[in-house]
């Protein structure tokens, strides 16, 4: 039987096991919407296409499945670009379907035409313009395969209207044949041997785990390695949760706003084991002075991540899970040794750094400290919530003061740093995990960047909670202005903020406010008891800084402690 292109798209989604599509209709993709309505794929109607991509991204991170997004041509397509770029930086598997004008009009400056394949070439793992309906099923098969395999990433498929109308026999391919794409999953045994040799001699090792550890689902293997040899573990922002935050060997986050002791440990370690991390500038600081004493083992599935900014002694290309499994097997063959005893001096040194420079803030007086809010959210949820964040101070405080014991529980736009990411991502995560608490820790600036998705949350009965740390500023920039620009707060004070409680109510959601420290816990508890979308407006201290902080150009061991 022949199917139209639009039907092929929908049937292919079903073949891929897609349960949710986040999207927004438009003229050239009406055919797909017409088919979608009749089939068992649930469509979540957003209010802005950027929201759709972030939802697909949040859905992908929480569920481990490929997130899917469907938008129209022109502005519908360009509105997805920020979300695609964010997913690309964070290696999140999503497939974005965009409508396109009919093939004969392409290049003609037709109404709502844009060269979205050209625009997204540098920020997708791969993208396609489908010109013949006969290619459609194969392209969709490839798109899903590429999105989830190797180093995951976003794939865009551009669908001209005439291709959606044209008909052909539908046969969904069983497998993908791409002669030029063969990710390396199996770590080379010779490299494992070298890594093991380094580890055996290491006196002051540190494991540095990134987002790739979550993508590879190798939390158990990291834990095995860490516990076997008593190696402390630090995570990047993207890697939080891959190793339990409450574990005695956990150092918390490293980097620009990481813990003092994590950065000191990396700055003084003799062997650094990087797992699915890419030595990003926010982690290394001044790269010339990063981990100066360390011999580095770097495990990554993407060869381009290795030796991109930092020289490594033992590169291991492969799936982190495979590499660590092999490494752990190798270590088991060693003669028995009391590693925890041998590690005592190193762990003791780290403990001293931790005691001398703890993560701290002072909750005193009538004003609520933003860190206090995050800490209370952690306590009330007993660390069991999925936390999404916006970008800025809210993101850093969430990373510092919420201890993530479970993987895939911290969802943040790490690489691109998209304000407006957290709320739609929370909606996607909540749809993926209806049984879990999902809380977006937001700022009053960021939340307004995709506030329109309140309608999406309410209309779809998505009971996400939004905790706004409302300081009336674009806080992270204000902090930089306070410390380095003589307190000249150019354009960072947000006047004209809405009343967030009334705003929530206007959308048909629930709005709660806490203005005094003693109101914080009751507001959190009340919000969590309401099975609806809730905005919690925490009126917090206006000029609180994220501390510690590594100034631009400094080494990671030269942290500023901002009080």
């Amino acid at each position, binding site marked *: 039987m022949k199917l139209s292109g639009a039907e092929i798209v929908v049937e292919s989604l079903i073949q891929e096991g897609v349960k949710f599509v986040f999207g927004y209709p438009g003229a050239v993709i009406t055919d797909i919407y017409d088919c979608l309505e009749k089939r068992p794929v649930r469509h979540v109607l957003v209010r802005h296409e950027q929201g759709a991509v972030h939802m697909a991204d949040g859905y992908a991170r929480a569920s481990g499945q490929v997130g899917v997004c469907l938008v129209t041509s022109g502005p519908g397509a360009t509105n997805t670009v920020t979300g695609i770029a964010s997913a690309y930086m964070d290696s999140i598997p999503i497939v974005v379907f965009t409508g396109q004008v009919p093939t004969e009009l392409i290049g003609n400056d037709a109404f709502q035409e844009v060269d979205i*394949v*050209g625009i997204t*070439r*540098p920020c997708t*793992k*791969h993208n396609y*313009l489908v010109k013949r309906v006969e290619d459609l099923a194969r392209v969709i098969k490839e798109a899903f395969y*590429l999105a989830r395999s190797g180093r995951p990433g976003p794939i865009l498929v551009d669908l001209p209207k005439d291709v959606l109308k044209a008909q052909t026999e539908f046969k969904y391919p069983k497998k993908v044949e*791409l*002669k*030029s*794409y063969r990710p390396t999953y199996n770590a080379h045994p010779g490299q494992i041997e070298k890594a093991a040799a380094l580890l055996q001699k290491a006196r002051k090792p540190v494991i540095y785990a990134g987002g790739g550890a979550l993508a590879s689902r190798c939390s158990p293997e990291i834990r095995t390695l860490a516990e076997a040899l008593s190696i402390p573990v630090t995570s990047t922002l993207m890697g939080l949760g891959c190793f339990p935050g409450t574990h005695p060997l956990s150092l918390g986050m490293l980097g620009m706003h990481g813990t003092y002791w994590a950065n000191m440990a990396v700055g003084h370690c003799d062997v650094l084991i990087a797992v699915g991390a890419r030595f990003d500038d926010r982690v290394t600081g001044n*790269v*010339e002075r*990063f*981990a*100066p004493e*360390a011999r*580095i083992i770097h495990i990554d599935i*993407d*060869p*381009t991540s290795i*030796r*991109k*900014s*930092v*020289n*490594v002694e033992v590169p291991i290309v492969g799936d982190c899970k495979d590499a660590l499994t092999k490494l752990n097997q190798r270590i088991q063959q060693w003669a028995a040794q009391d590693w925890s005893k041998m590690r005592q001096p190193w762990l003791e040194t780290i403990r001293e750094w931790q005691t001398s420079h703890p993560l701290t803030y002072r909750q005193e007086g009538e004003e609520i400290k933003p860190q206090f809010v995050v800490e209370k959210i952690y306590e009330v949820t007993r660390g069991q919530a999925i936390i999404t964040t916006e970008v800025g101070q809210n993101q850093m405080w969430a990373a510092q003061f919420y201890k993530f014991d479970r993987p895939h529980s911290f969802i943040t736009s790490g690489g691109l740093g998209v304000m407006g990411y957290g709320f739609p991502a929370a909606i996607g995560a909540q749809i993926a995990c209806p049984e879990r608490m999902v809380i977006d820790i937001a700022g009053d600036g960021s939340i307004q960047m995709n506030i329109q998705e309140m309608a999406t949350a309410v209309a779809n009965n998505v009971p996400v909670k939004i905790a706004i740390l409302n300081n009336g500023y674009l806080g992270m920039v204000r902090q930089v202005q306070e410390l380095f620009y003589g307190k000249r707060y150019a354009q960072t004070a947000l006047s004209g903020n809405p009343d967030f409680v009334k705003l929530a109510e206007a959308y048909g959601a629930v709005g709660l406010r806490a203005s005094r420290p003693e109101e914080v816990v009751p507001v959190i508890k009340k919000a969590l008891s309401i099975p609806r979308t809730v905005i919690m407006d925490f009126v917090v201290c206006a000029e609180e800084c994220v501390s510690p902080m590594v100034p631009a150009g400094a080494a990671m061991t030269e942290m500023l402690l901002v009080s």
Partner: protein
Amino acid sequence: MTMENNLNQKHTLSVLVDNEPGVLSRVTGLFSGRGFNIESLCVAETMDPQVSRITLVTRGSEQIVEQITKQLNKLINVIKVIDFTGTEFVEREMALIKVRAEASTRAEILRTVDIFRCKVVDVSLQDYTIEVTGTAGKIEALLTLLSHLGIKEIARTGAIALGRSKKEGPLKREGVKE
């Protein structure tokens, strides 16, 4: 542990790619987006019409060229990347040179053409158009010699290159992934 960036060596890369629209743009976009430099670039189909060969000359430290090679390999449409640097290979460029040819200089131009084993491919009362192939050095040398006679226009390709075959072994077929 930082990367050494002092070397700035020339590298000739041969990139086999899917012969599809947009592939060249992916390759050049990668260079511009990541701040790598392209000195010259030549593209044409191989014996397999589904595969094109891009010959690309770039400069950079060992670490930069390693990144370039890896980043190229990461593109889905790239089948194979060969860095000829440090291997035995044949490299050629071609130029068309329109040179002013007056009665007094015509003979000298023809002698030069002869010495450089190039060809005159178009003649008029005012000028000769010369076709030359060779290494970049040879073309530079010819241009220097002709420049004082008055070069009107030139069109020049980038380098193309192939690895030298092992003399005893069979020839490798183009476009076959190893």
